[in-house]
């Protein structure tokens, strides 16, 4: 569904991504694990159209994605929840969700989609009239994810959805991601919280200093000693 081929991104002399290749198949949840500054956000930014790559290719459903400007990629079926969330802080929750359904293909099913999202995040339903910028970080993240789902995406890109959230809220967000995953939506997620992410994902890539240094099924990576040392912190879980 998504093929990233030898993609490089640089900011001036700093190379953020160096010949990165990866694939995502329909229905899969793929995780990209990496430390701060490993290039995770640059990768999602390039797929979402917020970052222009130096070279390399990205195809989505067989079409060249790099030829589309950022806004057109949403129409093509790619929804990005960026780091920092990118919601409309001055508008209400309801308005944010309505704007999410801006792509043409999303409008017809918008009401049904909205009902599903409110079932997923009941708190949004209670706060529809609240100005989004006045909500807590976790609630804003729910608005951002809900808004992305309103665009009826084929591929959901999540950039560090748990960043800066309290542990209890992180659990809530991951529980919601688990339910989104059950709907069969294809997801590419970038996270520092490797343990929770690997528990949900089918496959994962390891990104270090702009390069892919490993990949494999999430189940295997969870017990791989190198991964445990680098990303999970501490020893291999006791069941080993």
């Amino acid at each position, binding site marked *: 569904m998504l093929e990233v081929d030898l993609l490089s991104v640089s900011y001036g002399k700093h190379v953020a991504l160096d010949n990165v290749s990866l694939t995502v198949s329909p229905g899969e949840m793929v995780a990209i694990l990496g430390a701060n500054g490993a290039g995770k956000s640059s990768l999602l930014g390039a797929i979402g159209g917020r970052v222009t790559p130096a070279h390399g290719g990205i195809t989505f459903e067989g079409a060249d994605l790099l030829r589309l400007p950022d806004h057109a990629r*949403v129409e093509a079926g790619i929804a990005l929840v960026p780091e920092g969330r*990118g919601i409309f802080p001055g508008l209400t929750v309801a308005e944010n969700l309505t704007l999410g359904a801006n792509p043409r293909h999303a409008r017809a099913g918008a009401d049904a989609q909205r009902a599903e999202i409110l079932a997923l995040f009941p708190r949004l339903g209670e706060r529809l009239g609240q100005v989004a910028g006045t909500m807590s970080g976790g609630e804003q993240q729910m608005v951002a994810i809900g808004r992305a789902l309103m*665009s009826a995406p084929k591929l959901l890109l999540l950039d560090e959805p748990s960043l800066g959230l309290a542990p209890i809220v992180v659990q809530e967000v991951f529980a919601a991601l688990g339910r989104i995953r059950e709907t069969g939506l294809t997801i590419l997620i970038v996270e520092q919280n490797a343990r929770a992410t690997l528990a949900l994902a089918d496959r994962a890539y390891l990104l270090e200093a702009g390069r892919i240094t490993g990949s494999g099924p999430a189940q295997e990576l969870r017990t791989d000693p190198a991964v445990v040392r680098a990303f999970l912190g501490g020893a291999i879980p006791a069941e080993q």
Partner: protein
Amino acid sequence: MALTTLILGLVLGGTYALLALGLTLQYGIARIMNLAYGEFTLVAAFCLVALFQGAGIPPLWAMIAVAPAGYAVGWALYAVMMRPLVTRAGNSGRLEVDSILATFGLLFLIQGVLLVVFGANFTSISYLDQGVRVLGVSVAANKLIAFGICAVVGGGLVLALHFTRWGLTLRAVAQTPGSAPLVGIDVNRMARQGFALGTALAAVGGASVAMHQTFSATGGVVFTMKALVIVIMGGVGNIGGALVAGLALGLVETFVATAIDPGLTLAATFAIFLGVLLWRPQGLFGRG
């Protein structure tokens, strides 16, 4: 007497509010501070007069064509003159300064053409100027019609901005342009629409000016400044604030002109402006 001032002030304020609405749309959505804004008002006013005197087309009929024509001119101007500035500025924030310099030049260009074509004399027409009694006060019919047009166009726009998906999209771009592409909004397209819509409002404002006021080719800058004063008074980006501030400015000017001296209207406008800038720079209705 007080009632006369009130009604005439509201009539004048209606035009001001409409002009301010257009300027705030251009600045809020396209991020272009258009110093030639008042010139577009004048072009529309002169066209209305020329059509009336030259071809006998009644201003009310010409009015129907003025808004779409203004929109088309704004659209073309954005494509030819503003788009290169937008592209060059990227995200650097240079657009604001560049657009001020470019439209400052455009101001003199349009003014020069107007002076050559229409001359430097004050212009006005007499059209529907028989008095109509409103609450016991005699008001010229053309003033009432001009006010009605401003109320319908301005009010309609405010409703559209708050109750339609299109209006929601415009507000989203005005408030958080960086997030707009995430929901598939083409910010450049909305900027062009906002600029064109602002020009259309300048033109409708100009047409209503032509119906009941005297104006000259060099007076465009006064319209721009008044619209700017109102936008800042109302709080930049605050549509409702611009409407209220516009009406308020019309009332103050009319009061000063009738109770003190007509020569002091502009001085009064700028006294208010200075006061707002000094004590409430976020605008009378701005937050914070």
